[in-house]
């Protein structure tokens, strides 16, 4: 039995001590969609994704991923999705194969199945030749491909991608999106992604929602959003919906460490 609404969010709210990050949002994602979740910095995107992926408890509201509640059915939900974070979560000192194997063990995949699937995925990702190389020797694009592939090892229903192609060149971006769309079509994996590249959302998403200041300001297809704002480019429609002002955020601990990481990295 295939659930139709693979992601259901109703009246979802998250309040922190002094402010409301997510304010009563409601949206659904159908099985098989490629869904873009757009919004300026600090809009509440990351907080929402964290609640969907069991990393944060909502203050109030209703979430169902593949029919399960992330709060009360945590492990069921975790088995239903795979996630590729914005910042790398691979282990640099291990090889590609070891990274995949670790993931397989964490998700309880038995050894024989693990071995077959890892080989399948690595060949599909065109990383099989380099499977015994340490990930620190990989280029940015290869690392990203590996992370996406790894997220799919346990055959999840939903794939969450947080800025999947940030910092990659056009060829790699194109390659990755072709791969994602193939998976979406062949395996029926629902894709939920965030991005700041509007043409990427325009070109690849079948449905999208724009969040700003914790509220959803628009939902629909790219065409519908463009029609609503009377713009031809999605980027213009987006700016129209969210305003021209720059959202300055205070640098948090993560930003400091990210900067330090860049300093120390050789590439």
């Amino acid at each position, binding site marked *: 039995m295939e659930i139709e609404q693979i992601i259901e969010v109703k009246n979802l709210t998250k309040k922190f001590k002094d402010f409301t990050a997510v304010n009563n949002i409601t949206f659904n994602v159908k099985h098989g969609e490629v869904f873009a979740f757009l919004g300026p910095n600090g809009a509440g995107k990351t907080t929402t994704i964290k609640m969907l992926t069991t990393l944060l408890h909502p203050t109030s509201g209703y979430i169902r991923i593949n029919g399960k509640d992330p709060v009360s059915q945590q492990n069921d939900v*975790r088995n239903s999705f795979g996630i590729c974070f914005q910042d790398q979560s691979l282990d640099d000192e291990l090889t590609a194969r070891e990274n995949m194997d670790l993931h397989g063990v964490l998700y309880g995949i038995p050894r024989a199945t693990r071995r077959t699937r890892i080989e399948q995925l690595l060949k599909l990702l065109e990383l099989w030749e380099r499977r015994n190389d340490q990930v620190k020797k990989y280029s940015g694009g290869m690392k990203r491909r590996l992370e996406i592939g790894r997220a799919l090892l346990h055959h999840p229903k939903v794939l969450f991608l947080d800025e999947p192609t940030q910092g990659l060149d056009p060829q790699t971006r194109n390659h990755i999106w072709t791969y994602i769309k193939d998976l979406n079509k062949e395996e029926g994996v629902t894709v939920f992604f965030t991005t700041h590249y509007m043409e990427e959302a325009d070109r690849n998403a079948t449905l999208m929602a724009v969040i700003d200041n914790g509220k959803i300001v628009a939902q629909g297809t790219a065409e519908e959003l463009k029609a609503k704002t009377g713009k031809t480019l999605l980027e213009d429609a987006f700016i129209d919906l969210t305003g021209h002002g720059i959202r300055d955020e205070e640098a948090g601990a993560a930003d400091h460490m990210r900067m330090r990481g860049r300093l120390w990295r050789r590439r």
Partner: protein
Amino acid sequence: MVIYILWLRQIKRYLRSKARIVGSLGQPILFLVALGYGFGPVFAKAGGGNYIQFLAPGIIAMGILFTSVFSGIEIIWDKQFGFLKETLVAPVSRFEIMIGRTLGGATVALMQGVLIFIISLFIGLHVPAFHLVLLALLFGLLIALLFTALGTAIASILDDMQGFQLIINFLVMPLFFLSGALFPLNGAPSVLTDIAKFNPLSYGIDGIRTTLSGQVSNFGLSTDLIVLTVIVIIFLALGSYLFSKIQI
């Protein structure tokens, strides 16, 4: 299986950075040679005996101490940019993740301690009762577990590497210097011995020193073992609890 593979991961990470292994042996070797040979004559003249015999266990413990704390602290970085995130979304209990990591980190710290031990043998350490080396290993393991768990506990609440500097200077260094690692507690001013009594490392060092160097124990071997074991259990519980509360 999860615990095993996380443990194995820590070992692999350690063995794969040969440069880091060699580099981290630099300080212990320096201490052993500079202090050991430097203070040797003075120590002997004061009636303390062979300083290398006295110092080496302290330096072995130093290696274990710092390696343990570092591996726990690694979590601060890992939380944001590393593998830890992947484990936090997986259908695995936080407890298993913490135990796998802590056991792995402690094993690595112990391996480091063994390396320093071997080097000490070349510098002049003489082990009178080799069958006690196994007991020394146990003490080493307890120290390693204790401080890896402590590092994990601290790293679970810190979000920035800045706090890490504070921890090293105001917690780890005092723990090391006021533990009888470098000077005998027997006969030291009561201020220092009183502080040392509350320092778990003092008991660990006492244990290693008695089993490896054949010196007379300051607190008694069984006291050392009991105190260490109890504190290890407390810190493991603390580390586990704080780790389970991590929010990324």
